[in-house]
């Protein structure tokens, strides 16, 4: 125990030398928690405006956060070893439910994404965002790293199976996100650059066939719209034109909280969900964007730090993957709203309204906290 405490990076760690801090005992990573709380508060503030001063929406979101924080704290109490032990079973269970979705799933807008059990609906693909990296990390953790070719292939299979099942729902965004979370594990495990460059080359080379054979018309339309929103001003281009207008008209200063005309006057669609960053940018200006990006960056850096400090390769790989996946959310959402990327259904993490992504993300942070506070036990 004392061993561990001496390793604490804090200045004040000398005072705590005798016994572990409360934060330690409850497996809470204080800097991460503080950053998340600031982000949550900022997000709720923006949501109040984005939802048209709907206090109900803020309370609903607040409840999601309460649940999510509870899950995070509970998740942090579970030992990393247990996560590792659970990983293959969770993976099998997850793939099983994805198969079940294929046959018994319910959905909307032509996509089958939900399972309904006893009136409770849930989206198995969402859980897979955590389970897939857990499974890949579990698989690689037992092997020498960087992984050998066969293990890479096996890992890719672990990633590919659920990704393919989700792709056919169809839910391209989630499939890509899950694939990415698995691949991030491989990347952090240190696979050779030849694999990485090979994969990049393959991706570039397959872009054209993918355009022809894989992408559906509406997906192609989204890409075309991103490239030239003016081509369909009132249709597909409307969202992106209005979100760019909202962002641009915010300027450096912003129009002020609750003063964003684009969202208040309904010009901005999905203003409280996927496009909420546009409201933030409109009302709080580039200053507000800078603040948000800074918060995200600090969370990311904390995540990376936790990974570097982790004592087991399992913890390292999980921390790296969770952190990078979180970054993908930020990058894809901010990029699509600003017209840099095609519009896919990726929320702005911890700010967009909606309970599912909040719960998944916070559960991920729970695992991160478990990693950050459990290295002692792993190192024994």
């Amino acid at each position, binding site marked *: 125990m004392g061993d561990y405490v001496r390793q604490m990076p804090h200045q004040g760690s000398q005072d705590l030398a005798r016994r572990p801090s409360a934060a330690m005992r409850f497996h809470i990573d204080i800097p991460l928690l503080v950053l998340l709380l600031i982000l949550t508060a900022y997000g709720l503030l923006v949501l109040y405006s984005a939802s048209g001063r709907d206090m109900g929406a803020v309370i609903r979101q607040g409840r999601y956060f309460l649940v999510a924080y509870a899950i995070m704290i509970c998740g942090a109490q579970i030992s990393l070893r247990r996560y590792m032990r659970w990983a293959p079973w969770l993976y099998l269970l997850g793939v099983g439910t994805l198969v079940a979705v294929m046959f018994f799933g319910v959905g909307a807008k032509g996509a089958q994404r939900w399972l309904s059990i006893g009136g409770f609906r849930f989206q198995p693909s969402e859980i897979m965002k955590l389970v897939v990296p857990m499974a890949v990390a579990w698989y690689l953790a037992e*092997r*020498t*790293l*960087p992984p*050998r070719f066969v293990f890479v292939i096996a890992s890719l299979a672990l990633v590919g199976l659920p990704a393919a099942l989700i792709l056919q729902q169809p839910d391209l965004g989630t499939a890509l996100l899950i694939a990415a979370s698995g691949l991030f594990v491989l*990347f*952090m*495990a*240190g696979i050779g650059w030849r694999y990485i460059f090979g994969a990049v080359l393959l991706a570039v080379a397959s872009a054209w066939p993918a355009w022809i054979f894989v992408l559906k018309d509406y997906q192609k339309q989204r890409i075309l719209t991103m490239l030239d929103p003016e081509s369909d001003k*009132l*249709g597909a281009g409307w969202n992106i034109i*209005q979100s*760019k*207008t*909202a*962002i*641009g*008209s*915010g*300027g*450096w200063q912003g129009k002020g909280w609750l003063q964003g*005309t*684009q969202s208040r*006057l*309904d*010009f901005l669609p999905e203003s409280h969900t996927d496009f909420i960053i546009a409201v933030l*940018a*409109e009302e709080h*200006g*580039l200053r507000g*964007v*800078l603040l948000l*990006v800074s918060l*995200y*960056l600090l969370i*990311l*850096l904390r995540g*990376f730090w936790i*990974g*570097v400090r982790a004592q087991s*390769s399992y913890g*390292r*790989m999980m921390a*790296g993957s969770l*952190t*990078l996946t979180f*970054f993908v959310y*930020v*990058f894809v959402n*901010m*990029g699509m709203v*600003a*017209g*840099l990327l095609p519009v896919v259904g990726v929320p702005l993490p911890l700010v967009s309204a909606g309970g599912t992504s909040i719960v998944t993300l916070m559960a991920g942070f729970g695992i991160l906290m478990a990693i950050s506070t459990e290295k002692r036990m792993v190192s024994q």
Partner: protein
Amino acid sequence: MPELIALKDPHRESRVYSARTVIAIAIVLGLLAVIFSRYYSLQVTEYEIYKTQSERNRVQLQPLPPKRGLIYDRNGVLLADNRPSYILSVVRERVADLDDTLAELAALVPISEADLDNFQKKLQRRRPYEAVPLRFRLTEKERARLAVNRYRLPGVVVEAQLLRHYPHGELFSHALGYVGRINEREAFELDESDYRGTFHVGKVGVEKFYEDILHGEVGYQNVESNAHGRVLRVLERFAPVPGVDLTLHLDIRIQRAAVEALGDRRGAVVAIDPRTGGVLALVSTPGFDTNLFVNGISSADYSALRDSLDVPLFNRAIQGQYPPGSTVKPMMGMAGLESGLVTPETSVPDPGWYKLPGDSRRYRDWILRIRGTGHAPRVALKMAIAESCDVYFYDLARRLTIDRMHDYMQPYGFGRRTGVDTTNERPGVLPSTRWKREAMAQAWYPGETLSAGIGQGYMLATPMQLAVATSVMASKGQRKTPRLLKAVNGEPVAAPLLEPLIADDSNWASVYDGMREVVHGERGTAKKLAKGIQYEMGGKTGTAQVIGIAQNAVYNEDEVAERHRHHGLFIAFAPLEAPTIAVAIIVENGGGSSAASPIARKVIDTWLLGEAS
């Protein structure tokens, strides 16, 4: 060679991991920089562009159409007012699929082909954020249906608008004219900025003549509206300036008396107050309900009006050009006296016909077929006017010659537009040798002078011109441009004065004598009018031939088809000593002047004695 290392090497793994973390952080920072630079370029570099675009989204400049000026008669009776009416409009910018929306709307309210045509034409010219009207005059039920479906019809608006209404539509149809929807040609002619938000414009008559002052000035407001086009608040407002209210000289009592007296006959009545030049009545029958035109007349209604044999759309009072017949005789008499060719005592022999020297053709007097002889062995001016003796005026015309006749008649307003303040007036014809040369490229024949002397032949006059001539006569040479407009916003407007006709007082008296005798004389051609009359009136009857009658044929009213009967004319002014009204009346195919003269009595009675008569 990784294959050789079978054991886990935590330190190496940790090293590799740290290296990968560094790379990952570098990539994250790089991509965040890309994102941030994108936001920077949107929010700083292109700030002005998006700022403008967001303002344009939010703020809309809405035209506030002015209230059209009201029109009153001289008694303050409202002749044209504005009533609220509901319009269905579409804002193109807010509509995703215009065809779909139009189809949905057509399912909710009836929309005709003409409505759609009009809409499509307007759509070309209006800005995308402006409301383009699709249907006018929504009923209560239609409005309710639209309100219920409003949520699924973004960009569809129902607006209230003031619409012209004519409480006495048919009575004043030709006197007032009407407004109608702005058509394509007008849209190009009108100043677009003045007419933004206005859908109607004066088409004919007073409504058109005074369009610029009736219309008013358009106002504007900046409104904040949401993406669905709903106006949330007014940011700034520049009120429109309403059009001015017009008071006309027209008198609804006289107008009504004239219309009632004409009954179902085709004809026209124009009454002028010679003291002011104000037009007291301007009637052309049949009329039509001008309200039909305000919002686009249905094609059935329109073809009925257009194809009617009675041409109700034709304003006989100012467009109808008729041979004035004997109604020119008082003016001819003045010409004879003023030229010195005759004195009141000068008489000519009257066998019932007249012959030009060296010409065997007999120019018959109308009395010949009734009595077989002339009016009297010798006829002087008074009797010539009273009994409408043609022979006297044949002789006078011959001696005067056509060109001098033209010069003496011109001051009465013949041969050119009177300039009355309404539209579509026609000039009539006052013949002269020059006129015939220019209009017909022919020489003037002496016989034509005789026809001209009794108002036949080439001479044509509108009832308005006859009323003006009568007014000049009644005011002893005072000439004014006839005016319908009496006052603007309560401020009186004077009729433009023209150079007066200077003539000897005794000459006026001599002609008045004759005109008095027409009504009050034993043998006056309108002596029936004198029965029970409470004032003295000067008048003159006239008959205009519709078809030519062969040299020796006799015109028999009963045998001639109704549409070939002579037009009956009558001019009059009263009271004789100080005239306050001058009237001209024509009854188409009335058979003779007796169809017209009783109308004059009713009109003048109404003016002088009030409605009681």
